[in-house]
């Protein structure tokens, strides 16, 4: 872990009881973000990416969730803070923006009022000063005529403007860390790019650490410096963004990459969805949790549980996969060349036996 990590999550576990059994929502997740950097957390719904970050915010919705591990903000441990101290940190030092800006804004209050409220929650300023700050914030996120727009209700805003307003609200108190939970999922593609650019710009201007949660690798490519891929409550691969796209190591990451169109692969290469559905977090598959969906699974993988380990010869890159490094490299080379998973596996196996 970098010594100057601003937000550090160590071995975070979140589990809660349901009628059907214990849900292991987050299962030993560690990551860190430095000032002015952006970390992307990628995964399907139910991979634990949102739960882990809501837990960081102290906003776990599940009553009686068992939380263990450590969350450090500037070296200060957050998980055992008294409620009221955690409240002072929320929206002040760590802020969060959510997926659907329409349902995330209160329908009955004016946008400016909702922004001013965020300011007043943490700063000892007058209502007028808070209202002025709200206008200033709307201006910062490029909302035209901010003074007039502050008087509008959320339903009078467009989708993109609402998300801009949400971002403005999150940045109201110059937070050190901004967690963005699928900030562009509910938006049009053209607006998505604008919002991502805005987050990127503000991250640099304000020197904020950003955690970007998404299921969309396209979002990752444009906005973050490092990537953690989550599957079934665990991080299965971690690397810089460039590395994730150039030399990914985990079959799940390959699956994600093969399922989106890319400019640097042959145009006739088919898009291949990952077969199956995300596993139940109550009865997780034995061994490697990904094995039921993995095209490269071997018998032993159903018994052994892989650990997140450094990739040999690639500093800063780690992966939790039971395939040997050589095998992985061969398979990825075949996949990159445009082969489908089955044929890539056979080609890699052929090389292995001939070697």
């Amino acid at each position, binding site marked *: 872990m970098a010594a100057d990590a601003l937000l550090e999550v160590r071995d975070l576990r979140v589990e809660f009881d349901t009628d059907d059994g214990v849900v292991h929502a987050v299962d030993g997740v560690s990551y860190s973000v430095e000032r002015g950097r952006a970390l992307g957390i990628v995964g399907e719904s139910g991979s634990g990416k949102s739960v882990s970050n809501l837990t960081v915010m102290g906003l776990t919705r599940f009553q009686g969730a068992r939380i263990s591990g450590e969350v450090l903000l500037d070296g200060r441990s957050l998980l055992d803070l008294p409620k009221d101290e955690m*409240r002072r940190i*929320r929206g002040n030092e760590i802020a969060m923006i*959510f997926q659907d800006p329409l349902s*995330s*804004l209160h*329908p*009955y209050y004016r946008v400016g009022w909702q922004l001013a409220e965020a300011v007043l*929650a943490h700063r000892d300023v007058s209502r007028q000063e808070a209202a002025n700050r709200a206008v200033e914030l709307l201006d910062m996120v490029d909302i035209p005529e901010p003074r007039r727009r502050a008087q509008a209700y959320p339903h009078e805003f467009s989708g993109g403007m609402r998300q801009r307003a949400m971002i403005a609200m999150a940045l109201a108190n110059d937070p050190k860390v901004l967690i963005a939970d699928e900030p562009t999922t509910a938006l049009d593609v053209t607006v998505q790019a604008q919002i991502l650019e805005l987050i990127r710009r503000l991250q640099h201007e304000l020197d904020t650490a950003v955690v970007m949660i998404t299921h969309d690798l396209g979002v990752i490519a444009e906005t973050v410096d490092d990537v953690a891929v989550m599957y079934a409550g665990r991080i299965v691969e971690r690397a810089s963004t460039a590395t994730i796209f150039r030399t990914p190591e985990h079959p799940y990451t390959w699956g994600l990459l093969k399922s989106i169109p890319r400019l640097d692969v042959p145009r006739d290469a088919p898009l291949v969805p990952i077969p199956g559905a995300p596993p139940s977090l109550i009865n997780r598959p034995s061994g490697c949790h990904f094995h039921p969906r993995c095209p490269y699974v071997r018998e032993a993988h159903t018994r052994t549980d892989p650990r997140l380990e450094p990739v040999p010869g690639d500093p800063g890159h780690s992966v939790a996969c039971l395939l040997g490094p050589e095998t992985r490299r061969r398979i990825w080379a075949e996949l990159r060349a445009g082969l489908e998973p089955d044929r890539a596996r056979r080609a890699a196996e052929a090389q292995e036996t001939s070697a």
Partner: protein
Amino acid sequence: MGRYIVRRLLWVVVLLFLVSLITFIVFYAFPTADPAQLRAGRQPNPQLVEQIRHSLGLDKPWYVQYFRYMKALVLHFDFGRSYHYNVPVRKHILDAVAPTASLVVGAAVLWLVSGIAVGTISAVRRGKLIDRLSMGGALVAISAPVYWLGLVALYLFASDIGKVHIFPGAGSYTPITDDPVKWFTSLILPWIVLAASFAAFYARLLRGNLIETMSEDYIRTARAKGLRERRVVLRHGVRSAITPVVTAAGLDIGILLGGAILTEKVFNIPGVGMVAFDSIQNADLPIIQGTVLLGAFFIVIANLVVDVLYAFLDPRVRYA
């Protein structure tokens, strides 16, 4: 908004006209008794009955009677004279409005305050002991009929017949203009009895709404802002969850202003409900007609007020 209200008010007139017509027809189609006979006393001679019938206009066909009635109403705002008491209907009923309004408005304040408080606490402490106790109590209060609850209240607390002499009992109503203190104390028991089931209903309504609201995304946003939980619940949660409560309150108050018959009867409060009850027993059509119109008027106006209020409560609602 102005045009909307004007249009709605025109509909009120149409509606009241229809209500008066239907009341008239029902009265003639299903007569409960002959008003002239009732008026004439215990052993009437036929001549007297005929004379009364003629002087009240009852010997004319119903549509002629209706036309005369409406003519006086539209031209002079005259609701006719009571068959039974031979007094002007308008004054007779309007005199009863103040007691009913005293009863209903006071009870409404009581049930809104207690219902909202209990509902909010129950929602926030869902599943905890205080929630179970409140909701159990609410169930009892909803199930208890006013005439039973009223009599129990009198039996226990009335200063004349009660086990513990605390509050003035039945028949102690005093107009506020005569003695505000007596007015207040005489209404304490009726207020509680009338408010009980409403308070329970509102508490359950608000609790259910608030529980649902608290799982909304904007509540998560409010928490993510770092607001105090108290503010999250009251300014963000209750603010949304209260809208249906306001609707229900508007309609309930409107209905009750037309006469809270059971409560008025139990506590012998000379309100619209008592007047209506009497008039039915006496087959006193002009008064029946008057109380029905008054009740209908309050209900449609309450509807209008609720709809207009809605636009203020929810900025997304716009009327044109």
